[in-house]
């Protein structure tokens, strides 16, 4: 028996109710501001969610410069990566880099990173020159300090024909770090450079010592630095320094597989006061 028109209308109503019920169940929570949503998506590595969130946020605030940096960051990390997105992001950052606000400085830093790490064919010379621009225009900013470290790395290991000469040139930077984290990283890069080239161990020792004096946020990095400082000091006959560094390592890293070896080396050092 066919349905009457009333029954058909009721059926339609039920269908509509069920569909709305499902939509209500699956709809995202309303009212979340999409600018915060974009930043949060980036922080949580949900890169493909970040782009649309920043696009929505920028519709409401088209002149918001930090949001534009977020939009560029989302373009750089959207998966799958495309050359077009990298170019678009670089162009967007280029428009933001004039000025001296946080957005401008971050844009300058990110443009150097685009050349170093985001381009499909990295352009290390361009990266170094962009780092130099940032350092020249905002020398005291933490990102410029970080840029100094990255530029030293590029010059010594990647660009320079004479890494030892590059290391010597970079010695002049030692006094330019106001930020302890960047200073630590600078000294570690310098020490690793000398050690890899197997040159000027005393200088490597000085850099390791300077790095060890700074604060570490990664326990493994601190442990490696203290062990390397102790071992190099031992090798160079600096027993007191070796003792001090090995002692700090043993005190701060109770679960490191090198403990027993370090204890053995420590016990074999000449007693305090002897050469």
């Amino acid at each position, binding site marked *: 028996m*066919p*349905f009457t028109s009333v029954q*058909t209308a009721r*059926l339609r109503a*039920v269908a509509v109710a*069920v569909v709305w*019920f*499902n939509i209500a*169940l*699956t709809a995202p929570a309303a009212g979340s501001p999409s*600018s*915060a949503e974009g*930043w949060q998506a*980036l*922080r*949580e*590595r*949900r890169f493909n969610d970040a782009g649309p969130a920043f696009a929505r946020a920028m519709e409401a605030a088209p002149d918001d410069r930090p949001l534009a*940096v*977020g939009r560029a*960051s*989302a373009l750089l*990390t959207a998966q799958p990566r495309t050359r077009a997105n990298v170019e678009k992001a670089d162009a967007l950052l280029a428009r933001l880099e004039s000025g001296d606000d*946080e*957005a401008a400085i*971050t844009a300058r830093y*990110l443009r150097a*990173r685009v050349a*170093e*790490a*985001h381009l499909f064919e990295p352009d290390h010379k361009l990266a170094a020159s962009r780092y130099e621009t940032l350092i020249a225009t905002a020398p005291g900013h933490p990102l410029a300090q970080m840029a100094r*470290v*990255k530029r030293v*790395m*590029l010059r*010594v*290991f*990647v660009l320079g024909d004479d890494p030892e000469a590059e290391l010597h040139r970079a010695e002049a930077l030692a006094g330019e770090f106001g930020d302890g*984290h960047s200073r*630590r*990283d600078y000294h*570690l*890069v310098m020490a690793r450079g000398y*050690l*890899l080239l197997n040159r000027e161990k005393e200088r490597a020792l000085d850099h390791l010592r300077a790095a060890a004096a700074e604060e570490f*946020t990664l*326990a493994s*990095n601190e442990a490696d630095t203290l*062990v*390397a400082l102790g*071992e*190099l000091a031992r*090798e160079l006959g600096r027993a007191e320094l070796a003792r001090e560094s090995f002692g700090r390592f043993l005190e701060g890293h109770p*679960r*490191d*597989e*090198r*403990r*027993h*070896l370090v204890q053995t080396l420590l016990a074999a050092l000449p007693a305090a006061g002897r050469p």
Partner: protein
Amino acid sequence: MSRINQIGILLLLAVFGLASWRMAERMWRGASHGGEGVLLRFAHVTIHPGIIRAYDEAIRDYEKLHPGVRIEQVPVPLRVWPAWLRTQMIGGTGPDLADMDRGQPDEFLARFFLPFDPWLDDANPYNAGTPLEGLSWRRTFVDGLSNRPGYRPGLQQVFGIPLTVATIRVFANADLMREVGGGDAPPRDYGEFMKLCEAVDAYSRRTGRPIVALAGSSTHTLPLLTRLFSSQTQTLSREINPRRTLALRPRDAALAYLRGDWSWRTPAVADGLELIREVGRHTVEGFVQLQREDSLFHYSQGRALMLATGSWEADTLMAEAPFRHVVFPIPIPRAGEGRFGANVLGPPSELAVSPGNAVGVSRGTRHPEIAVDFLRFLTSRDVSRKVMGDSNRLSATAGVEPPESIAAFAPMAEGYPAGFGPEFSDVSGTGAGDAARIYRSYLHELVSLGGSVEGFTRTMEARFGPAVTADLRHSVRDSARNGALEDAILAAARLGPDQSARSVARRLRMMEAQTQRELDAAEASYVLRTAGRNRGSAGAAAFLPP
């Protein structure tokens, strides 16, 4: 409207309605159970009955303490776990608590799991009255939650709470050991181990019984061979390490190879190959092609005297093998003694053994506080001792001694860093690369009856260099890729609204880790660029301490 159309619509509505109801039920069931309670689903792959029983008892105890909370275990076989978890999470029907260390990538964890950081600095209330009372939850774990799998360096956050740690030991069938003339005491060093292997061969020839000394498979034999080989490279690893860190990572050893600081004919490396050949001859021919189940079967059936495996399989072996076991550490040569002792510093330290069985909390859970609270309970000192005792595993909670049944698995604190292994499986930055494939593909040239150290060495001389070069190039690209993703996270941390102390600390950790990784990549780039020019220029002796 025709009758057929009407029936079709009715059916469609019925199915749609039922699906909607099921979906709503699932969502509400997470919020309340039985009208007033809470139901949490805990999914994991440790499906051995002993472990499930041990978890069940802990769950019942937790439920008694928290009336109204019910926790349901969802055991899932390992083979289907990745697909199962992905489907459940994407479908919005994922468990509240789940294993998170089964190959899940950072992106997956960040999307579907909660970081534990907000809870780690508070004390675990279930440790009241124990020596761990008052310590932050983080500090109650043997590694302070500073290692994988719980801690994810790519995210610089803790996404999993580990329940266990693991060590590797050799199991021997005690009855068979006596029968072949090996006595009751386990071998104390490599020399005694080889005598036992030879006794098995002699027994097999004498009686015609087809048994081998070591059960063989890629899962169980390759780690044993790696451990033996790396005993021979302990001293060499110190000598060729420009960083002076007293521990050489596989990538450092790979770079040292390209610099010409060692070759497959370096005496210590050649001795390592000799060791592999000696031991490899006492296992099943073609073991690289065999799987875990094959070697477990061989051992449990008495067709192999010994099996080298991890503490995670102790409960299975004890429950299922119909004989008593003797358990002992992998017998490396004694330092300074015998043919292989000159290269050895000593037994490898197990202070830094990796935690495992890490459990995460789903972002989709309606009850993150209760899910975290249950994990606090499960990892408290007394509960962990009971659960691990009942399931013969080693606890990741600090100060929990292993149960008597697996005392032989207790991590050895006194020991030395291992040397580099022959596999180089971590060089590429994304798991086993070309060098590992070369090693596994040609290992038969070393261990088979017709094989030889010389033959294998020639093969490696021809193939290892290009393979490890490819792996290092891959690692440099991988570093750039990771760095690029971190740039966006760091920009968000700098310009986004969350400027809390925790957020700043995470940013600083990520920056430090990025610099370290990029420094590694820059060094690799330099060595790759100059390897041809400078090969052998530094030489092993160059880094030798006086």
